[in-house]
């Protein structure tokens, strides 16, 4: 077990280094970061001056090493627009993104798990058809359109929820539902197929043959086993949610990291872009590391490879 955790930890560190390389390369894709960073109307002398100041004339490896040392200290440079450390700006917005993502995840799971279970137990019933058609629709709906339609119905027409900003619980509902929809749909379908698989197992027959009530058979025996594969995808779903947050936050003017990153991209504020991308990717790696380690405790059958 210990060696597995160590191996997994080492692996995560490797991925983090890979992430830092990619984040570094983004800025150098055009070959001339100075031209990218300077305003459009800067003279060529100004650009040359800036190039020297920023050390863009050094060999790429030297520059990467400098960038890497910076990230270890949490130093991504100053935001060009806000003249504040880029990392501080990102960290300031982090709680909003975490709040939104976790709420979306909770809404998705609270609805998806029962829908999946009912669909599996009442297979081919009307409930099953409604649930699975809904799931298929949910998986096919673009996040950005869903957000706009929810605003149209619930903010513009009925005026039940505000269409933008953060503050009260009301502000949270629409963005969280928008963000959670895709994961909800995918999890419901997965829960259903996982449950169906468990229901066909021999030990379910045994449980029923013992004379246990149907409710007990399902809740005690089937559900516990059917949930295992669903738990593992929670970590992977988080990646989907963090990515979806970029668009959801933009639509609902939610003051999170995703919106900050998109604005920074439009403003060519690359230190902020780099800090935001690096941090979001790191969170994903960290959560998956934790999920993997927890999983070995949850399901002893898992191969420690």
């Amino acid at each position, binding site marked *: 077990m210990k060696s597995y955790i160590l191996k997994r930890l080492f692996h995560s560190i490797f991925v983090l280094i890979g992430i830092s390389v990619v984040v570094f390369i983004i800025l150098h894709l055009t070959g001339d970061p100075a031209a990218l960073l300077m305003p459009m109307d800067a003279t060529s002398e100004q650009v040359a001056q800036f190039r020297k100041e920023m050390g863009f004339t050094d060999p790429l490896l030297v520059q990467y090493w400098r960038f890497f040392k910076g990230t270890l200290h949490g130093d991504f440079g100053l935001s060009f627009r806000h003249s504040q450390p880029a990392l501080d700006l990102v960290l300031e917005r982090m709680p909003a993104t975490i709040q939104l993502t976790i709420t979306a995840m909770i809404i998705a799971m609270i609805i998806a798990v029962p829908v999946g279970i009912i669909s599996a137990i009442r297979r081919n019933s009307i409930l099953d058809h409604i649930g699975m058609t809904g799931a298929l629709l949910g998986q096919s709906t673009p996040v950005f359109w869903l957000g706009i339609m929810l605003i149209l119905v619930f903010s513009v027409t009925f005026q039940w929820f505000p269409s933008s900003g953060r503050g009260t619980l009301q502000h949270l509902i629409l963005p969280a539902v928008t963000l959670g929809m895709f994961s909800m749909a995918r999890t419901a379908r997965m829960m259903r197929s996982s449950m169906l698989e468990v229901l066909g197992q021999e030990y379910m027959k045994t449980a029923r043959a013992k004379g246990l009530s149907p409710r007990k058979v399902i809740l005690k025996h089937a559900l516990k086993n059917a949930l295992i594969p669903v738990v593992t995808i929670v970590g992977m779903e988080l990646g989907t949610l963090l990515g979806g947050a970029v668009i959801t936050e933009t639509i609902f003017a939610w003051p999170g990291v995703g919106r900050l990153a998109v604005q920074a991209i439009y403003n060519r504020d690359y230190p902020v872009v780099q800090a935001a*991308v690096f941090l979001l990717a790191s969170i994903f790696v960290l959560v998956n590391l934790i999920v993997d380690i927890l999983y070995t405790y949850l399901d002893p059958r898992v191969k420690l490879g």
Partner: protein
Amino acid sequence: MNFLENAAKTLDFVGEERRVTRGQKVLRKLLENKGAVFGLIMVLGVIFSAIFAPLISPHDPILQDVEKRLLPPWGQVGTDPNYLLGTDHLGRDIVSRLIYGARISIVVSVSAVVFSAFLGTIIGLFSGFYGGKIDSVFMRLADVQLAFPFILLAIAIIAVLGPNLQNIIIVMGITGWVIYARVVRAEVLSLREKEYVMAVRALGGSNGRIIFNHLLPNVVPPVIVIITLEMARMIIMEAALSFLGLGIQPPTPTWGGMLADGRVYLITSWWLATFPGLVIMLVVLGINLLGNWLRDMLDPRLTQL
């Protein structure tokens, strides 16, 4: 006499049954599945619209007409019979723009999917066949890539490189290879130990021959299934990029761009944002249904995708 006639008919019928080709069998199975039929109609409809856009569009999709601004769709007050789904803020016909929008959507997503399928399949074949260092390098690369919120990485790169058709296809293509590589690699890992591979090797067949003549044909079915399911994701991705202003630039009509325009006029003119999203959803739903059917036909093991 009657009996003989009947017998002849029966025999004839059996003969006909035997003559049914494999293609007809597949077609019959397809027609049994209502969802797949709907999917096929959607997919063919979009391809048809994309190819014959100039012939079937009622109006010029780019032509602006100030006097016809924001006309509502049929069934509303103050409609114009020439504009079924109304007009946008520049007086352009929504129907025509939706039809032309299919072009960008199809060209970008098909190119990106083909590119990523090619890249991923080659990497998967080599990774699985040779194993060792090549394998671990590519698989770690896959881990790094999966750690990024895909959309954030894509918009960062496109913002740096500039939003043109070529860049968008390359970025979307590169971000899509992982799933093909993983599935193909897993398949190859089990295939390479099979007797027939040993036999080819014993007969002096080169590695290249084994990979391309004997392993490749076996990984085609799962790759086709992934291609269909990835098409849906790429259509949404292209729309998301256009929605954020990083897709193909105006005045070329794109579904995502129409949605972004419509968002501004949401309170007064709901139809601007509603119809493009509805089209995206229906097309993606169609592709998903067709993809699910294909998966069940070709490779039921891929249910996790």
